[in-house]
C-alpha cells in the first residue's frame, strides 16, 4: 500500500526491519532488568520462552500464509477444537500417538478448507478465515459444550505440556523444533522459495509452471497444523479442554508477531526467523510489564505504541 514500497529492495528493508527489532529487544531487556533485576534471572528468561511457546508455534506456522499475501484469522478456535478432539480421543482410550494425530488432523483439515477456498475459489483470505473463525468456534462449542473437560490421570499426555527434558519444559522443545523445521523449510526447500514467489507475483509463479493453488492450500494447512499443535500443548498444560480457548484476539496477536517481525502483510518478502524475533519481542515486552506489575490499561496502550514504533522504524528504513 505504501507508495515507494516497490521501489526499495526487499533485502535492504528486511535488514533495517530485522535489526531495528533486534536493537529494540536489547534496549527493552536492559530497561526492564534495570527496573527489576529479577527480569534477567534464568528462571524468568526460561519463563518467557515458555510463555511465547504456544503462540510462537502458531506464528511460525502461520508465517507462510502471510508471506503468500494471505492471512489466517481462524487459529483461535482451531486451537480450542484440537484440544477437545484430543480430549475425546483420550477418553476413547486411543494410544497417545493416535490422540495427537487426531488432534492435529482437525487443524490440518480446517487449514485445507481455508486454503481450498482461498486458492481454488480465489476468495479473499481475510473473509474466508473470518467465516471459518465462526464455523470452527461453533463446531467446537457443539462438540464440547461450555463445560471444562478435565484431563485426569493421563501422565503421558500431561507430559507434553508439563514435562521436562534436560531441565527444559517440553513446550519449549516443541516450539524450538517447530521453529527449526519451519526455518529449514523456508530456507532450504523449494517450497520456501515458491511461497515467497507466490507472495511476490502469483501469476508469474503459475506461468513458471508451479502448482500455485496446491501450494497456497498447503500453506494454510500448515497454519492450521500449528494452531492444532498449540491447542494440544495448551490442553495438556492446563489439564483441560475447553471450547472457548483461543478467544478473540489470539489470531490478531499471532499476526502482530509475524508482521512486527518484519514480514510484509502484503506478501512477498518475509521469513520465519523474523517471525521468531517478533514473537520474542512481544513476549519480552509482555513479561516485562507483568513483572513490573504495570496495570492492564498501560500494558495495552504500550503494546499498541510499540507495534507502531517498531514497524514505523522499519518503514523509515525504506
Amino acid at each position, binding site marked *: 500500500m505504501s507508495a515507494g514500497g516497490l521501489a526499495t529492495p526487499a533485502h535492504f528493508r528486511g535488514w533495517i526491519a530485522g535489526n531495528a527489532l533486534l536493537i529494540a529487544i536489547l534496549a527493552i531487556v536492559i530497561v526492564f532488568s534495570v527496573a*527489576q533485576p529479577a527480569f534477567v534471572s534464568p528462571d524468568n528468561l526460561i519463563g518467557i520462552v515458555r510463555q511465547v511457546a504456544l503462540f510462537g508455534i502458531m506464528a511460525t506456522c502461520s508465517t507462510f500464509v502471510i508471506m503468500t499475501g494471505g492471512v489466517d484469522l481462524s487459529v483461535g478456535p482451531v486451537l480450542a477444537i484440537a484440544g477437545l478432539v484430543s480430549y475425546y480421543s483420550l477418553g476413547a482410550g486411543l494410544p497417545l500417538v493416535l490422540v495427537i494425530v487426531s488432534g492435529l488432523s482437525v487443524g490440518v483439515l480446517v487449514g485445507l478448507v481455508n486454503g481450498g477456498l482461498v486458492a481454488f475459489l480465489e476468495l479473499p483470505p481475510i473473509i474466508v478465515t473470518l467465516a471459518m473463525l465462526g464455523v470452527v468456534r461453533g463446531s467446537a462449542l457443539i462438540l464440547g*459444550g461450555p463445560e471444562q473437560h*478435565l484431563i485426569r490421570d493421563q501422565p503421558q499426555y500431561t507430559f507434553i505440556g508439563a514435562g521436562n527434558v534436560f531441565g527444559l519444559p517440553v513446550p519449549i522443545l516443541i516450539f524450538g523444533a517447530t521453529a527449526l523445521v519451519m526455518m529449514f523449510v523456508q530456507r532450504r526447500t523449494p517450497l520456501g522459495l515458491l511461497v515467497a514467489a507466490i507472495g511476490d507475483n502469483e501469476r508469474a509463479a503459475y506461468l513458471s509452471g508451479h502448482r500455485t493453488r496446491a501450494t497456497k492450500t498447503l500453506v494454510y494447512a500448515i497454519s492450521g497444523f500449528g494452531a492444532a499443535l498449540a491447542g494440544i500443548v495448551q490442553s495438556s498444560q492446563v489439564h483441560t479442554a475447553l471450547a472457548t480457548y483461543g478467544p478473540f484476539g489470539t489470531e490478531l496477536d499471532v499476526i502482530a508477531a509475524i508482521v512486527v517481525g518484519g514480514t510484509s502483510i502484503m506478501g512477498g518478502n518475509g521469513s520465519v526467523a523474523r517471525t521468531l524475533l517478533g514473537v520474542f519481542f512481544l513476549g519480552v515486552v509482555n513479561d516485562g510489564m507483568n513483572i513490573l506489575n504495570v496495570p492492564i490499561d498501560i500494558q495495552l496502550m504500550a503494546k499498541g505504541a510499540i507495534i507502531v514504533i517498531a514497524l514505523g522504524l522499519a518503514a523509515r528504513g525504506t
Partner: protein
Amino acid sequence: MAEYIKGWAGRRTFLKGMALGSAALASAGTALLGDRSVDGLGVARAWADGSRHKMAFIQWQPHTVPAAWSKGIEDVLKPQQVIDYELLDGQNKVEVQASLMDTLISQGASVIFLQPIDSVALAPSIAKAKRAGIAVITLNIDATEPHAAHVEMNHYYGAMDIAKAMGDHMGGKGKVAILNAPPGIIIRDQRTNGFVDGLKKYHPQIEVVADQVADWDRKKAQDVLHTILAAHPDLGGVYGVNDSMALGAVDVAKEKGLIGKLVIFGNDGEVAALESIENGELTGTQYTDVYQQGRLAAAAATVLATGGVPATAFAHQSHLLMPYIIATKDNVGSIQPSQRW
C-alpha cells in the same frame, strides 16, 4: 453499596456452612411451595388447555457456572411438560444480551432467567420485559431495575471472606498477588474490590504486590504467576478471581514445589477446584451450590409463570440469597457429590 450494608447482619447468619445453608434452602423452598399450593392449579390449567410456557436463560458467555445453572433450571423445568426451556448465549456482549431480551419479549416468554453482564445496561431491557408482563429472574448479578427475583451468591462479601480466610492461612502478613480478569463485567469488579477491601478490613498488614490480568484463563494465569514469582519469590498468597486462574496458580506451585507454602484461593467452587482442595493443592475457594441456585430460580419461575405473582408485584423484588462457604480442606468434605458441579 448502601443496600449491601443494610441487612448485613442478616447476610452474616448465612455464612455458617452448608448445614444452615440447606436449612435456608428448605425455608425458601417451602415458601415457594406455599405459593404454589395457592396457585398450583396454574400449571394444572396450562396442562389441561395445552398452552405452553416459554422460559429461557440468557447467560453471560459459555462457562462452567452458567452451565451448572442451566442444568439446575432444566432439571426442574423439564418434568413439567408445559414448559419449553432454552439456553441463550450473551457472547459477553451487552448488546447481544439486550437483543436476546427483545426477542424473548416478542416471543412472549413467561419467565426470563438473566445473568446480566452489567447491572445498569440490562435494566432498560428488564423494564421492557416487565411492561410486557414478563417475569425476569436475575442470576448472580443484580440489576438496578427492580424485577421479579434475584438469586445470588454475593460476590463482594464472598470476596471479603476469601480475603479473611486467606489472611488467616498466611498468618496475617505477607505479600499476595491477584490473578484478575480484564474489566468489562461487573462481577470482576465486585470480586476484586471485595477482596481488596477485605484485606484492608481484616489483615491490613498484608500487601497486594501484583494485580495482573490473566483473562479468566488457566494458561495465562500460569504464565503471569511465573513472572510475578520471579519478581516476588517471597510471595505468600495468590487470589484467582475465578477457579480456572487459581488452578493455573496451583500448576505453577506444583512445578516450583511451593504446594503448602503458597496460599492459593479461587472463586466459584467448580468441581475441579474442590478436587484440587481435597488433594491439598488449592488452599480454598468460595463455594456455592450453583446447581441448587438454578433449581431454586426455576422453582421461583414456575410460580411466577403460572400466575402466582402478578406482573405489578415485581416492584418488590425478592432476593434469594444463596449461602456460600469458603471451602477449604477442613470443610470441603462436607460438600456432597450431589452438590458438586
